[in-house]
């Protein structure tokens, strides 16, 4: 998922004002949640093609990013679409189970369709926003929207440290793998346990180092969030 971040800095509309992008995202979300299905069906391919175009990403790579969310979407849709019914007439593809019939609920079909399009449109919109908006613009947008500064600082630091965390994870993992730490199931479990422990220790050490560095840079308890016109 971190590659999404890379694209956010290097796309054709990276320099657009974050407020404009935020507004466009909102319009997309309204389209996703309004009741006219046709509008969504028209909107969806346009949004996808536009994203592929400005971000310079292949359809294949783009679809891969959906793997991360598809399980959740699928689970919720399955929960609604499939049902048990005493009569086979109410369901498609009925399977006789414990005296009832299991299958796709006929009465639920319009709703399932509606829901699927709503979710997919919302995801496509959000990906468009995430793929085209560099992080510091998101922070500026938060600032424009008068989000509490505590939340903004928290987001800022989390973003920065996600990368440090992922880096440490990769380093330790590679070091273990190079020395055959994941050669068998037993070893893997053992190595994974050590990895977890080391990451935890690293977090504590990093926290200490961060405090030192903040002191050295005369931190007064508030992170400045503003556009530096440099």
């Amino acid at each position, binding site marked *: 998922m971190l590659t999404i971040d890379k694209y956010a800095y290097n796309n054709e509309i990276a320099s657009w004002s974050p407020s404009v992008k935020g507004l466009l995202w909102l319009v997309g979300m309204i389209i996703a949640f309004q009741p006219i299905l046709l509008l969504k069906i028209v909107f969806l391919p346009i949004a996808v093609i536009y994203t592929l175009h400005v971000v310079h990403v292949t359809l294949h790579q783009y679809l891969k990013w959906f793997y991360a969310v598809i399980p959740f979407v699928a689970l919720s849709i399955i929960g609604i679409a499939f049902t048990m019914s005493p009569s086979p007439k109410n369901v498609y593809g009925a399977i006789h189970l414990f005296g009832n019939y299991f299958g796709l609920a006929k009465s639920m079909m319009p709703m399932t369709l509606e829901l699927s399009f709503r979710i997919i449109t919302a995801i496509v919109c959000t990906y468009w926003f995430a793929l085209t908006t560099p992080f510091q613009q998101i922070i500026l947008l938060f600032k424009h929207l008068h989000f509490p500064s505590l939340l903004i600082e928290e987001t800022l630091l989390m973003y920065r440290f996600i990368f440090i965390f992922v880096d440490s994870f990769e380093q330790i993992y590679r070091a273990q793998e190079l020395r055959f730490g994941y050669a068998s199931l037993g070893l893997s479990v053992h190595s994974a346990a050590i990895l977890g422990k080391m990451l935890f220790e690293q977090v504590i050490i990093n926290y200490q180092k961060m405090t030192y560095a903040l002191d*050295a840079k005369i931190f007064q308890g508030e992170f400045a969030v503003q556009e530096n016109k440099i």
Partner: protein
Amino acid sequence: MIELQDVDFAYDDHQVLKDVSLTLGKPGQNVIGLIGQNGSGKSTMFLNLVGILKPTSGRILLDGQPLKYDKKSLTHLRQKVCIVFQDSEQQLFYSIVKDDIAFALHNLKLPQDEVVARVRKVLKQLDIEHLKDRPIQYLSGGQKKRVAIAGILVLKSEWLLLDEPTAGLDPDGKQRMITLIKGLAANGQKILISSHDMDFMYEIGDYFYLLQHGNIVKQGDKKTAFADDKLLSECSLEQPWLMKLHQRLGLPLYEHADAMFEDEQLIHTLSAIQ
């Protein structure tokens, strides 16, 4: 001037600095080297100098005044004595280079024009103008190092502490570092550098302290500090090659490599051998 008087420091019960006394910033000593092997206590000493750690006994004086550890005094101290950490990753907070470089200036609540002017100047000085809009997480180690130094240089402090500034740099990066340090020193900046890169230290420093297991075991200028090969070996260090040439081959002791390569007499003598 920074003075350490009988400074001891221990992490919990692990004694790291032992009775360290020294005076930094005497006239003619603008670039001071702190040399010592891994774990000898260099970084720990730096953290004591900027008031992040407090000596367990003894005291540190800045311009004759003992360090005070209340917030106001520390803020004052950290504008005069600035540190660039060994690990540059730890010193970078923002996602974009220019924002990070401006961080300390915003903390001091300087006016926007001043912030912009200082950041621009430092970007130019370190030759990193092309990086200013780049996200920090995708920079190389050497680039991160330069950004970390930039974020401290903007403070225009009297003292600059550089903890292992050449670690992980390629030859070009190292050469740039040498040029940078020389340039800063020529402008009157006082610099304390820790390292075990002996040739680099020899090239750049005016005066040296040799640290072994938390003790200062030797101090002096180029001629004296690196003269004792046996002591250096005991400290797991190596003589700079110019010193080796001097001691083992009887060549004159050159201040830096270029001085040797430009020595007409030496070139003449050597070509006579062939």
